[in-house]
């Protein structure tokens, strides 16, 4: 009896222990260029779960993939050197002009000032730093994770990155059209959730085999129909050719809505059940939140 109780206690204690998320991983070349942008024409599309007709009256471009660790590390080095962001303790912070505040129920003030972009050495981060000249850190993506989506970046950090690239975060409408095309599909590739088409909870990709059902981020462009060491993916691209519009990491949206301080997220992530990857699913959180399964891409 005592032995059984000890076993149960050990099991529960084990449940609370931090998992050993690997700091490095074998590199996987997906053949997809994270610097690529995709053009999306103006026009009508179907928005939301109930497929309401909607219109986007401008042509725009979106990044073909989520922003990678390597891209974000490079940006941090450039932005720190240029003084666009600064260090505040172990955080990289930058100026934001603030949100209009209307005092709605549960609304919080997002005031003008410095807001966190990225936390140095946050648990689970795949960007590490080393001391450079004049105590300015030099950021670098962990080996093997260079082409994985960057996570643990706040909305402010994502927004600043996109502005530095001459772009901005996409709006929810822009994102949905880019993901869905002009029909009423539920997922970027069609109407059925497919395990080999996206990275989600229990999707059984090679990273799940190593780290459990929640797995890990997959390299951007991983789901394009290629086979990796015996694991064959389906082509999970959207009708316009965007990768990872469902799963892998939630994506920050640009919209700031009246009466809300929340920022919206789209796409679902590796931590979510398949139904959360439906293209109309919305998530939201405070803009200063940095999540292990939250990334972003830019539009312009």
């Amino acid at each position, binding site marked *: 009896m005592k032995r059984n109780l000890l076993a149960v206690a050990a099991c529960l204690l084990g*449940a609370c222990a931090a998992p050993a998320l690997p700091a490095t991983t074998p590199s996987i070349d997906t053949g997809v260029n994270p610097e690529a942008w995709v053009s999306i024409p103006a026009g009508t599309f179907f928005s939301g779960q109930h497929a309401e007709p909607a219109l986007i009256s401008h042509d725009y471009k979106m990044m073909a993939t989520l922003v990678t660790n390597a891209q974000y590390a490079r940006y941090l080095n450039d932005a720190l050197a240029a003084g666009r962001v600064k260090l505040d303790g172990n955080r990289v912070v930058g100026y934001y002009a603030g949100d209009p505040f209307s005092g709605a129920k549960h609304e919080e003030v997002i005031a003008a000032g410095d807001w966190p972009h990225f936390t140095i050495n946050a648990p689970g981060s795949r960007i590490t730093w080393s001391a450079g000249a004049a105590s300015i850190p030099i950021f670098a993506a962990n080996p093997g994770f260079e082409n994985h989506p960057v996570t643990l970046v706040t909305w402010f950090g994502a927004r600043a990155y996109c502005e530095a690239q001459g772009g901005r975060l996409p709006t929810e409408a822009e994102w949905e059209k880019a993901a869905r095309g002009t029909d009423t599909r539920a997922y970027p590739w069609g109407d059925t959730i497919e395990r080999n088409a996206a990275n989600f909870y229990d999707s059984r990709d090679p990273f799940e085999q190593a780290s459990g*059902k929640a797995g890990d981020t997959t390299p951007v462009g991983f789901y394009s129909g290629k086979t990796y060491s015996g694991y064959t993916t389906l082509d999970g691209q959207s009708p316009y050719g965007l990768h990872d519009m469902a799963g892998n990491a939630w994506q920050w949206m640009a919209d700031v809505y009246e009466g809300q301080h929340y920022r919206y997220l789209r796409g679902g992530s590796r931590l979510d059940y398949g139904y959360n990857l439906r293209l109309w699913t919305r998530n939201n959180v405070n803009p200063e939140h940095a999540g292990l399964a939250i990334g972003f891409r830019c539009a312009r």
Partner: protein
Amino acid sequence: MRAVRKRFAFLFRSTMGLVLVAIASIALVTAFFGMISGPMDELGVKAVFVRTFGLQLDPAQREGRIIILYHSIAMAVVAIEVYFITSRWPMKPDEQTRINSTITIGYLTSMVFGMWFAYFGHNYIFHGLFIAGQTLVFFAGILLTVALWPWRAEYRTADPDVSRTRGGLDLERVALFVMAVSTLGSVLFGAIPGSLFGNGFETFLAEDVIRQPEKDPLQLAIIGHLHIMLTLIAIALNLIVGRWFNFRGRLHKWAMPLLIVGTIIITMGVWAVVPFERIAHIIINVGALPVLLAALLLTVFVWRKITAARLAELQLAKPSLAQRARALLHDPLKFGAVWQMVYMNFVVTAIGIFMAIQLDKIIRHWPAREERVALTGHWHVLSGIIATIILLYYADQAGLKGRLRQWFGWIVIIASDLAFGAVAVLETRRLYVDELGQQPLVDTMMLLTDAGLASVLLLLGILMVWRLADLFKRKGRWQEEKAEVLP
């Protein structure tokens, strides 16, 4: 043919038969549609099941399917409560027959055609029958409310040991009546906006609009509806359990007025959510307090009673504390039915209050999908607890005895509480573990939840197989139940 007729008479004309049919219907729906749940998906069962039975799972209609599923099960649960009410409280036999037959046709029609519509292609005649079935359940509710009218001379009581007014008005019957009236109003509170959303097939789950700063009146009504219906089902069950244990005496005299006042305040609070959203929660919390106190008084009464009964059986005049505890735990069905109410305070009420108090400070700093998990878990656990109490009561009434009674009762209590406790930890995991450490905790809690629920469902299955086998016996348990005049 005569043998079949006899069994049909038992199943559809006796209280225990009707309850058995309703529990069996829920068990069948749970077993069948449980095959497309998350754990079954992970095991690969879902894909095979969907292919084999030709289920049509359009991703855009997931919310609509879930709503029909919840309603189908809820109608059967309401029917079970109605059967117990019409048999345990004095009522004219023709009223009892009318109410029972109306609600039986109603929930079965609603369940069969609703689920067919939701999962096997959209035949709109079936959707109409789903609505017609629910309308019959509502109509049975009106009949029940009329039958419960507590001011009739024959329902007045002179018993000095029960809660009553000086004029002899039976306050337990008043509590039932208030619950029934509140239920009818609260049904409309959901049905009217539901018909608007449903007719446009623009369904939504309440959990998905939690952070919308301005909810329209129809959305508020839907949110209010689901909360109050579950509350009223729990209040009705509280009264039924009280009748099971012949609740009376000083505690009864306190409990009934508390229950009446609490039910009225909560219902008013929920209905007020549309015009006065800002103060509705305060009204609801004020109303919840007397209801919880009434449940506490029932708990004290029941535990004292079952302890005293067992000690008397053992002829222990001056029992030690350990002997008292053993006596309390002697009958898991009786102890468990009330224990589950107590346990609810830890895994539902306490978490709900905590979330309400810390909403802006803590909960709203989590991603919305995690707040959603907490809310979904919250009401699933409450529904689960209600189901286990009904199951324990049914097992008692079905005459489970000896070791079987012990095993059944304790497994239901321990396994379900393990599952509900694990869900409670899952809901609040961000409080104890940072994001990086969550997954192992989630995996373990999911395992415990699945194991706990699977054990209870397995027991339910065994119970149903036993009852099915019993129906094939000439002089089975069903014969006794058919003839039984229940208290």
